[in-house]
């Protein structure tokens, strides 16, 4: 495929809308251009200063830069634990959360920001290998076109790997890159011990901003504990679904209003399908600490809204069935426990008494797997059942709620071609 044809393919699939609360950093320039090529990227962001490891670490420490893939592990700690020897920098662009679009937006529309960050880490750690792992063809084409534009990225490889929810987990990505199955390992050995540094696309892009503006300006926005901005993907029953950049700590209500959510949503889910249903509380701060205080999880920053035209319990059942199907089927409790849990939630929708069984099966999967999938699924279902107590009661008494299951929660990854 020629570069021009690749560009045309990329442009056709720019279906995700982007908007901003406050001043844009990662999304800067994207209001005027569909995609920032190298020239446009440099015009918007300026050149990337050369960095050595000490400065990179002190900057990352100063703003407590954390991984943006969901786990929120501090970047500096991960860098310090990187083993000596042959080092390998991996950009995890697999974004396997079906409702999440933020990394795809960066890969397709602002790929140079992520490349800046990855190349800076490679230079600072003297890593000779840099790999960008992606799940879809449009992202791969955009990153390949970006790599071809810059002489400092000759050693960057772009690899398309198997799609699937648990395949996006960092250790599954590394395993796939080494020719193995895209599934997490049984024993929890950090990849840094083998000299491999894996982080999410947005993490590298944030680093590219941090290295340019320095920790002082970086902390101009956000909260004291979590400076800077973050990307969210907002979806479900909103008028303006899309990827939004916000100062960390922005109240949920502001994002919901800006997204055109109904004034009284039936339910709000933050953190995607490993996240949590949270009680309608527009004061909840969108930060790791804010979500933790509200009993949720920030995850990879997915916000989903349900309005009152859909059966929320049915939506929960649909996603629980999907989560069960996403099991890598490596670990018994997840393989058998999640389908049992999905059957319980489906029984609740049908008006049967299955709440005790459901919480029993939640306990059967919690903490009993090689990766975060069973725990994340358990959190999603438990929080949903707590929020939907009245709904469950209504289904039990009346055999249903009279509303159809509209499918407001997406369960297919958008465009994995």
């Amino acid at each position, binding site marked *: 495929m020629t570069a021009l044809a690749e560009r045309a393919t990329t442009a056709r699939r720019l279906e995700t809308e982007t908007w901003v609360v406050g001043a844009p950093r990662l999304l800067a320039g994207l209001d005027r251009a569909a995609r920032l090529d190298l020239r446009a990227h440099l015009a918007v962001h300026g050149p990337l200063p050369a960095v050595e490891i000490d400065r990179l670490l002190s900057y990352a420490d100063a703003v407590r830069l954390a991984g943006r893939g969901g786990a929120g592990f501090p970047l500096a700690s991960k860098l310090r634990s990187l083993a000596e020897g042959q080092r390998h920098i991996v950009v995890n662009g697999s974004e396997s959360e079906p409702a999440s679009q933020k990394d795809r937006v960066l890969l397709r529309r602002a790929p140079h920001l992520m490349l800046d960050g990855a190349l800076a880490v490679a230079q600072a750690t003297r890593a000779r290998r840099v790999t960008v792992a992606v799940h879809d063809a449009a992202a791969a084409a955009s990153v390949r076109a970006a790599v071809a534009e810059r002489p400092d990225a000759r050693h960057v490889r772009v690899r398309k790997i198997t799609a699937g929810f648990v395949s996006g987990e960092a250790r599954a990505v590394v395993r796939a890159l080494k020719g193995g199955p895209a599934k997490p390992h*049984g024993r929890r050995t950090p990849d840094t011990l083998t000299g491999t540094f894996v982080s999410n696309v947005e993490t590298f892009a944030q680093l590219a901003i941090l290295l340019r503006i320095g920790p002082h300006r970086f902390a101009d926005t956000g909260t004291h504990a979590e400076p800077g901005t973050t990307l969210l993907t907002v979806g479900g029953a909103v008028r303006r679904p899309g990827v939004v950049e916000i100062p960390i700590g922005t109240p949920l209500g502001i994002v919901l209003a800006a997204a055109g959510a109904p004034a009284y949503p039936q339910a709000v889910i933050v953190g995607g399908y490993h996240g949590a249903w949270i009680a309608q509380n527009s004061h909840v701060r969108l930060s790791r600490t804010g979500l933790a205080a509200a009993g949720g999880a920030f995850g990879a920053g997915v916000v989903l809204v349900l309005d009152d035209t859909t059966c929320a319990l049915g939506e929960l059942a649909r996603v629980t069935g999907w989560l069960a199907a996403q099991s890598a089927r490596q*670990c*018994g*409790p997840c393989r058998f*426990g999640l389908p049992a849990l999905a059957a319980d939630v489906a029984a609740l929708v049908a008006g049967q008494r299955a709440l005790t069984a459901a919480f029993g099966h939640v306990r059967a999967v919690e903490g009993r797997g*090689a990766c975060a999938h069973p725990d994340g699924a358990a959190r999603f279902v438990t929080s949903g059942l707590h929020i939907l107590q009245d709904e469950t009661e209504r289904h039990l008494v009346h055999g249903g709620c009279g509303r159809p299951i509209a499918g407001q929660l997406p369960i297919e990854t958008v465009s994995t071609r």
Partner: protein
Amino acid sequence: MSARIQVDWTRCDGHGLCAALLPDRIGRDEWGFPIVGQPTVGDPNDGDVRHAVAACPALALYLHKTP
């Protein structure tokens, strides 16, 4: 030095030998997979625990030593 009994869930097939050998520490769920109720082992050389680890046919049961 102490240790924790852990299960490599990708290997475990729920044979149940661990639960039979360590009934005070390990139970089984409805599919037969172990529920480690008492994972902390004071003495890493505890004979019963080492025996159970050695007996696991799937090599899934292991002792994770913590300093």
